[in-house]
């Protein structure tokens, strides 16, 4: 291991508090820290206002406070080609994609990592709440110490070659501690609100945003028995298990989305949060990445998350060919959503994950996407 002062760490700085504190911690540890802002989306509005410009201003302020050089890099094309195109394709296919997983895989830990390495970086650091541990020759990814903020779910696609080159200094802290450190050092971003929008695109009216890129086709809303319940605004706006925005009421409790028929443009709805139709007992996932880099061939038990910030559930994983797995749940699960990630854990260690492709109940595929 080189001396920190001879170790160049390129920090991906977004202008938020997390990446600001990441840079702060590394600077305090004596590393040769370089801050880089990624511009991946052009959202300049009709008044010439652009959130990327505002965020970059915050990067400049923090970098000056920390006395580190800062730069900007433009990955608009890469983001469009690798993340946004996938995002739209998935919606077109009636699924609910996870752009953050794709953004980590293709942008932050590929395009950006390559850029940083071309700048002579030894490591790239980001403000993710996750930890990396070297175990023998293998790099393990562990959940962040702040269980409420743990972001390993979004990082499930990272391979060994990437893990060997990254640092997650915030993994050891809670969000509260991070805010405290930012305040203690008077960082310009100390009290800045966390972004909750789509990775790099920012916060916006989701329906309106999506309709700029995909034509919305309103259609029928029906019960599974074929009773018409009204109109939907376009299948892409709905996700399995969703309650909000259906606009139907009546006796028998609230209504939920339970399926889509793309061919006939029908949205299926059913009553009750615990409607039986929302429950399944297994799934098939594709594009599975095992973080250890070792191919899994034998079935094994572990825990899994099917959504971000969900509690772990007991599962048994049956590896198949071509990076696919079948995952059988110990308890039936509600609203398993194709397009989202399934991520596996052994205690604190994130084993990897894949994209949920099909959902199974009683050995039958559930027709969420007929």
């Amino acid at each position, binding site marked *: 291991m080189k001396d920190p002062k001879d170790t160049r760490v390129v920090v991906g700085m977004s202008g938020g508090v997390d990446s600001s504190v990441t840079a702060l911690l590394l600077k305090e540890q004596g590393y040769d820290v370089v801050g880089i802002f990624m511009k991946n989306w052009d959202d300049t509005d009709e008044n010439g206002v652009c959130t990327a410009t505002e965020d970059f201003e915050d990067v400049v302020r923090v970098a000056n406070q920390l006395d580190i050089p800062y730069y900007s890099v*433009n990955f608009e094309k890469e983001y469009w080609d690798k993340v946004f195109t996938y995002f739209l394709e998935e919606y077109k296919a009636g699924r609910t994609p996870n752009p953050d997983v794709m953004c980590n895989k293709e942008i932050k830990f590929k395009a950006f990592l390559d*850029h940083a390495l071309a700048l002579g970086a030894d490591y790239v650091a980001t403000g993710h709440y996750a930890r990396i541990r070297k175990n023998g020759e293998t790099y393990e990814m562990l959940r962040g110490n702040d269980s409420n903020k743990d972001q390993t779910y979004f990082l499930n696609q990272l391979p060994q070659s990437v893990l060997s080159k990254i640092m997650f200094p915030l993994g050891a802290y809670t969000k509260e501690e991070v805010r405290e450190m930012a305040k203690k050092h008077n960082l310009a971003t100390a009290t800045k609100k966390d972004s909750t929008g789509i990775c790099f695109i920012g916060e916006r009216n989701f329906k309106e945003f999506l309709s700029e890129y995909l034509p919305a086709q309103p259609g029928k809303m029906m019960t599974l028995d074929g009773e018409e319940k009204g109109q939907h605004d376009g299948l892409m706006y709905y996700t399995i298990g969703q309650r909000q925005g259906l606009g139907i009421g009546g006796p028998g409790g609230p209504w939920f989305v339970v399926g889509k028929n793309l061919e006939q443009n029908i949205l299926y709805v059913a009553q009750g949060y615990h409607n039986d139709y929302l429950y399944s007992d297994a799934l098939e996932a594709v594009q599975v990445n095992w973080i250890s880099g070792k191919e899994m061939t034998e079935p094994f038990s572990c825990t899994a998350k099917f959504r971000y910030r969900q509690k772990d559930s007991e599962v048994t994983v049956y590896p198949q060919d071509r990076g696919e797995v079948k995952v059988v749940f110990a308890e039936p699960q509600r609203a398993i959503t194709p397009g989202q990630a399934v991520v596996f854990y052994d205690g604190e260690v994130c084993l990897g994950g894949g994209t949920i492709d099909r959902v199974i109940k009683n050995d039958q595929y559930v027709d969420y996407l007929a």
Partner: protein
Amino acid sequence: MKTIYFDHAATTPVHPEVIQAMIPVLEKHFGNPSSVHHFGRQARKIVDDARSVMAQSIHANEKEIVFTSGGTESNNLAIIGTALKHQSRGKHIITTEIEHHASLHAVEYLEKQGFDVTYIPAGESGRISAEDIYEHLREDTILVSVMYVNNETGIIQPIKEIGQVLADHQAYFYTDAVQAYGTLPIDVKELGVDLLSVSSHKIYGPKGIGFLYVREGALLQSLQHGGEQERKRRAGTENTAAMKGFQKAVELLMQNREKRNETYRYFKQQFLQNLRDEDIQFSLNGEQQFAVPGIVNISFPGINVETFLTNLDLSMVAASSGSACTAGSVDPSHVLAAMFGSDDPRTRNSVRFSFGMDNDEEDIKEGARRIAQIVKRLTL
């Protein structure tokens, strides 16, 4: 590591004699040149002396010099001021695709206000032709705006020839001479221009000061309203200390222009020779027989300009490309895009190096060595 500055086309360091000239103005002669008391008169003399030196430097008379805050303001005043004043005679403007944004965006603004603009392309040589201007001239053309030396490529434009083409036409002829002034002797009558702009911080003077030459008899709509400074063409209390510094910078330039050019020429030639000796691949953008001595725009096949410039900076070498755009990222150069087409890789792998009097032979050698090292690493 020693810092090496190869970005003199962006801005130059301030000459020590310029700083010395400015200090007494800041310390003692703080008066407002418009005041009717002796403090005012003292300050007024500073403005008049500076104006006289500016006028002589381009063979103009003092009434023809309008002090401004620099190149951008001069550009805006010349272009928008002319268009607004003469729109009753026509709404057609001719300019080029390779102008500085300070001109280009001013013209685009006018386009949105209903003016009709023709943009002349440059081609691979980086030089537009007077014939092109002639062919696009119309009866209702009121302004032709062509920069003298392109700030990205250093290519000199045929201003005198265009001046001849326009001699018998109603259109005003404006040239942005910000990048030319430090290198080319300028005689406004010989060039046949009605308007010409100059900036101080490109010639070792302070920032925030420049001037616009406005031919006697040429009329402009002023853009800034207030007092009667600059014969009502540019209201606002004069920046006397900067004017004094600017004056000193111009005096030094007039004494040393040829010597400086020789130095720049030598630096450029040494620099390119060093790069060749390092055995890296590169080519020069623009027809080099028309390039000024201090600027060279180099394409390095296989590099990405953003990665390259960041690497250069991390190795303490300052250079630039195109113009910085939103959120600090680098846009492909509009100048190179106009010359080569926007899909040409040269728009994304070219860097401008510009030399100055604060460079020495060691800078040239060491700079070329660091640059070659990075190019080799990035093109492995």
